[in-house]
């Protein structure tokens, strides 16, 4: 069971990578299986351990109507088979054909082919013999804690801005996640395609994102506030903006995953922890930037002004704070942070797609609400909790499919007992 879970975690972590490789090297498959509508379907997969792909393994596929076929995995570990009937198919690994150092705990997997004309992915669970011996439950926990911290820090970068915007304007910004995507996609254009160095390109991405924040508030949000649009109306405007932006990205980049840097990341190992160097740098940058934001909020004049506006805009305005200026600044900083988060996210997970933001939007909302709507430090705390929950829950026995669902469930349960969130003031509710 434990090993199975470990394999699952691994598979999930590697999914973006697999997707990337498979999109980049389509000709590596020996024989390509093409599903024809209403006639055939394909079952396909890549046999890989946590270390590498496994070629030359024999698989037996049996299915309805006496279907039985043997395939051998190719150079890249890829295999596929064409079937002509929907139904349940069993894919079985011939254990004798596995290399000596590779073992499997679940040699069989059942694949349900729902309809013809589609390709069904099948993941077989194999690992190197030495992997299981060294990997204990505790090690997995340590590893996923680090992964959780990493995700949490990246989420925190984006959600602190989301929370500040909520605090100062009362707006739940559904388009915030698209700003995260924007950071990654700009990184792709500037660094991967444009050939800028990671540092120069990265700084440029943050600057451009900051500008989009300034610009948004200048041409959209401030005029709408002046117009006296209600918060619900404004929220629906952000939904519209989010839809438009998502499809803009898809328009220009397509539905594929794009990468910020071309070469594969290098990996460092510290005891039980395996982590890419990029992740380490990303975490370090996140910590520094978050600390800077925290310092600015607590110690600088403008930071105190921001918190004052967050507390009570009318009172802040009455005591001479230029709320419009503060809100403009909040938008600028929030969007810059979201862009940075997206860039780092793309580096850490090795790619970004048009809907990456959509995937993490709810995690951002969960983080912000968990910590307490409108409190910047609450968002930080909430993001770390959400990140840890998402990464650790599979280790503790939650099926991998449910890791995002778990985070959202925790949010809902917390709202029931403490609607103001962890760090929120109770008076704000009701």
């Amino acid at each position, binding site marked *: 069971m434990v090993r199975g879970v470990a394999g699952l975690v691994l598979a999930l972590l590697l999914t973006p990578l697999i997707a990337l490789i498979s999109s980049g090297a389509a000709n590596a498959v020996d024989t390509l299986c093409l599903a024809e509508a209403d006639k055939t379907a394909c079952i396909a997969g890549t046999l890989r351990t946590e270390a590498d792909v496994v070629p030359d393994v024999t698989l037996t596929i049996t299915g309805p109507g006496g279907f039985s076929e043997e395939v051998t995995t190719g150079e890249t570990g890829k295999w596929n088979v064409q079937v002509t009937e929907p139904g349940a198919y069993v894919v079985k690994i011939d254990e004798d054909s596995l290399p000596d150092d590779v073992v499997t705990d679940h040699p069989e997997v059942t694949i349900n082919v729902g*309809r013809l004309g589609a390709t069904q992915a099948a993941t077989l669970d194999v690992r190197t013999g030495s992997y299981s011996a060294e990997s204990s439950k505790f090690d997995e926990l340590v590893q996923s804690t680090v992964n959780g911290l990493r995700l949490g820090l990246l989420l925190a970068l984006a959600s602190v801005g989301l929370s500040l915007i909520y605090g100062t304007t009362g707006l739940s910004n559904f388009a915030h996640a698209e700003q995260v995507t924007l950071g990654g996609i700009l990184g792709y254009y500037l660094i991967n395609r444009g050939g800028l160095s990671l540092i120069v390109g990265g700084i440029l991405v943050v600057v451009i994102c900051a500008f989009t924040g300034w610009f948004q508030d200048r041409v959209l949000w401030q005029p709408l506030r002046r117009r006296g649009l209600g*918060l619900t109306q404004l929220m629906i405007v952000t*939904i*519209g903006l*989010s839809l438009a932006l998502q499809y803009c990205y898809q*328009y220009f980049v397509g539905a594929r995953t794009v990468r910020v840097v071309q070469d594969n990341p290098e990996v460092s190992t510290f005891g039980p922890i395996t982590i890419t160097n990029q992740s380490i740098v990303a975490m370090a940058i996140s910590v520094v930037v978050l600390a800077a934001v925290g310092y600015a909020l607590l110690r600088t004049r403008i930071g105190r002004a921001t918190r004052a506006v967050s507390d009570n805009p009318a009172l802040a305005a009455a005591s001479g704070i230029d709320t419009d200026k503060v809100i403009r600044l909040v938008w600028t900083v929030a969007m810059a942070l979201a862009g940075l988060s997206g860039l780092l996210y793309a580096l850490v997970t090795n790619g970004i797609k048009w809907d990456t933001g959509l995937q993490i939007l709810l995690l951002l909302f969960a983080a912000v*609400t968990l910590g307490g*709507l409108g409190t910047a430090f609450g968002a930080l705390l909430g993001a770390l909790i959400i990140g840890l929950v998402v990464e650790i829950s599979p280790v503790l026995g939650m099926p991998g499919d449910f890791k995002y669902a778990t985070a959202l469930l925790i949010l809902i349960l917390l709202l029931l007992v403490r609607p103001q969130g962890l760090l929120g003031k109770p008076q704000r509710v009701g």
Partner: protein
Amino acid sequence: MDTIQLILNGMMREALSPQTAAVAIAVIGLNIHFGFTGLLNMGQSGFMLLGAYGFAISIWHDLPMVVGLLFGFGAALIFALILGAPTLKLRGDYLAIVTISAAEIIRYVGRSALLTDFTGSAQGIPGSQYRSSFTGLSFFGSGSFTLIPFNYTDVADGAAWVRVLGWAIAIAIVVVLVLRLRRGGAFNGIAQAALMGLLLVAGVFLLFFLFPVPNQRTGVNGWWVRFVAWGLVLLCTFVVYLLVRSPWGRLLRGIREDEDAIRSLGKNVFSIKMQALIIGGLFGALGGIVYVLPASVQPDSMGRSLTFFCYTALLIGGAATIFGPVLGAVIFFAARIGIKYTAAAYVPDSIMNNQQTEQFSYIVVGVALMLIVIFRPQGILGNKRELRFNV
């Protein structure tokens, strides 16, 4: 001329499609939540997905269709109770966060590999597994037909002037209908109602005359499912009409404007809000069931985007109006296809390829949603003085 005819034909087909009707039903439910009661339900797609799952899974596992319907509605009912109990006493945006999260949880659970035997995981449940008990009810027979066999090609060989004249009259009828609906009281008295009915029927006939739509009689996506879907839209509209003109509907509007005032008058606001959440959710479930009848149950096609499209449709037609949801849904789908086809026909491929026309149409949807909310929050049929976004 032919290109325009082609585009308009496409819009007509899309406007008439059962999925448009399905979304219209879900929007009717959302209208009870958001339009009349002011509940910010951001998880209407969750209600739809639950309805679809309840229906499809039951039939897939050899239960009768009636049981399937009951399971679909039951799931939505329980969902509404679970979501409403903790949040309806809190500020409005909590309901939004909880509903959108809960709808996502349902989608994640539905696509989980653990439940492959029930939900078919991410692949979903193919329509062939549950559709036959519905198509079996059809009394339309087999084969295919065009709704009105007499069409523009029969008059003066389909000359351009016939069609242009027809389009002009059709537009005039629609404008008159919309104006009468906007003015309110369009159904006061038999004479008024009859006039409206006459205009409506004439308009529909004219549209079919101008844009003949051939379809299978029963089939996967034929007249039978269209007939049932649009019949349900009419029925739901009528039910909502009955509900909102009653004292119960008056309470809903009161709650939308000021809960405390209603509470001070001795009304159990929580209970009324819960009733509204449940009723709207049941409409959502019904919409979900209709949505999957001509297709398959795909959890990923019923995610947040669908909820957002519902909001777009609702705001186009006009929140807190009787016919707004139907009008909005038809316009939303027809206009999107219109944009897509127009872009495909007139924008060169070097600027916008076929794939990109699809995305372009959604970009327009997003921008349109923003513009409507900013400049015309009451939509086409709404009354600005009555509509308040109060959360």
